[in-house]
């Protein structure tokens, strides 16, 4: 299955936690397409930031369950989409910016 990079990478996750990861280990956190695998994610990131000429060293992924959401008490319940989180480690010295 071939996917365009913008179909693989949904968006960066900007939180305190992701900030700590970025500052202490050059790890970048993204929300990605659950269908994508680590290899595809790594390639997509490199492709996306081609201008910065970065190299992805490692990709770790995890599937996250969407939170359940209720409306009108218990009568309507559902959940948000399951999604995949990817922690991408870049080569030392490489940086990308998305804030």
């Amino acid at each position, binding site marked *: 299955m071939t996917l365009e990079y913008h179909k693989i*990478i949904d*968006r960066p996750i*900007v*939180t*305190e936690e992701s900030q*700590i990861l970025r*500052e202490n280990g050059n790890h970048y956190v993204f929300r990605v397409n659950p269908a994508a695998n680590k290899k595809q994610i790594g390639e997509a990131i490199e492709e996306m930031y081609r201008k*910065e000429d970065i190299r992805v060293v490692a990709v770790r992924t995890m599937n996250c369950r969407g939170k359940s959401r209720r409306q009108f008490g218990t009568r309507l319940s559902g959940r948000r989409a399951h999604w995949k989180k990817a922690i991408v480690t870049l080569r030392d010295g490489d940086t990308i910016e998305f*804030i």
Partner: protein
Amino acid sequence: MTEKDNDAVETPEQESAPEVSEIEETTDLDTADLSVDAEMGDDEFEWKEPPVFEIEHKEDCLCEIKVTIPAANIVSTLDIIYKEMNDGVQVPGFRRGKAPRKLLEKRLGKYAHSTAIEQLTDAAAKKLMRDHELRPVSEAEVTGLEDKDQLDDKEDLVYTVSFEVAGTCELADLSTIELERPEYEVDEEAVEAQINNMRTRFGRYEPLEEGVAEDGDQLVIDFKGTVDGEEFEGGSAEAYPYILGSKRFYASMEEAMLGKKAGDQVTAEVTFEEDYMSAEVAGKTAQFEISINEIKRRVLPELDDEFAKKAGHESMEIMRETVKKRMSETADDQLDQMLEEQAMGKLVEASSFTLPKGQIQQFVEMERNSIYGRMLEQNVSAEEMEREADNVDEAAQKQGLFNLKAMYVVDALSEQEKIEITEEDFEDYTRQFIQGEDTQMLEAYRAYFKSDEMRSTTAHRILYNKAMKTAVAKCQIKILSEEEMKKAEEDAKEKEAVEEEKEDA
């Protein structure tokens, strides 16, 4: 995960943003917490580098100032704003106060920058007023900041402010001002008249044994009025006290009673007017049968100490003195006030002013409103007001300008003579409105004059009175005798006439 190393350093990366830069779902920021600017009271603004003012005075008190705020201040102000902002804003994904500055800049940059501009310009304006002692009287007009919400922290912030400053007043030398005060001495006749007046008030009616009814007598009468032989409502009464000469009844009735004795019966014929209030008898002729029961004559008290005591004085002599004193005091007060008005008129004429246009307009407008207000009170019709519009305009123009000048004169006077308002002045002013020792009223008035909305007006009035008193004391006062006064009045009239002729020509 490296959660252990959570001593986050808040220095964001320096590279340019890539094209894809969506941030984690943005819910609304905690806007309730955006009360940052309320806490940023900049009483003491710290300037990294002082701002530069280039002041240019233009005619008519217009002041144009080019303000240059050095870039260093922009950086420091933004630092403070972001720091304070961070404490108050919750960004999703971050605990309060933990969001990196870069993120804040992206999200709240516009707000931060406009706050910074506001703070900087505010502080600059304060500094400008303090350092250069300018007294603006109009709203400042700022150019160069229009829709500027992005600050460049490497470039100085430059803009121009223009406003009108208070005018100046070159006060004329008080000793050169001549005031005319008419000579006044209490007229002995006026005193007697006043006392006689009181005497009448203390007079009593006493029954007259013999003699005929005269003007001023009180008659006790029964009367019966008939129209075509029939009585009508309100046409008769018994034991009615009537004062002859009071003209409450028709003249024919008074005539009939005049010169008659007690016990006499008289008749009178009265023709009611067409528009008489009672429609029943309007326009008809009535016959009145009047019987005079009693004649009472007013007996005036003797001008002796007894009368004086009744009127609240110890003796007749003291009473005369008091009346005289009171009369001369009232006259003095009036003359003093006249002198003050005269002094103000002459001061305004003799002093030179530079006045800001905006303020003149403001005062003229105020005067116009008060003229129309007075007209409304007097129930002047709308058409008349329209007809009078030109006159009102002219009067307002004149009086408004005068008021403004008078204000400047008072200011200049109080500065020159070092007049200040003290608490006692307030107290004295308040006491003027109270008669006797009415503590409750006194309290009420005191509270009223010192209330927020009245305080400045009251202070202004007190200052005016004080200043004018001082001014009058320093002016030359010429006492005019009656003839001289008359002559002066005639001269003034002539002058006016000549001027009017000139205007007409």
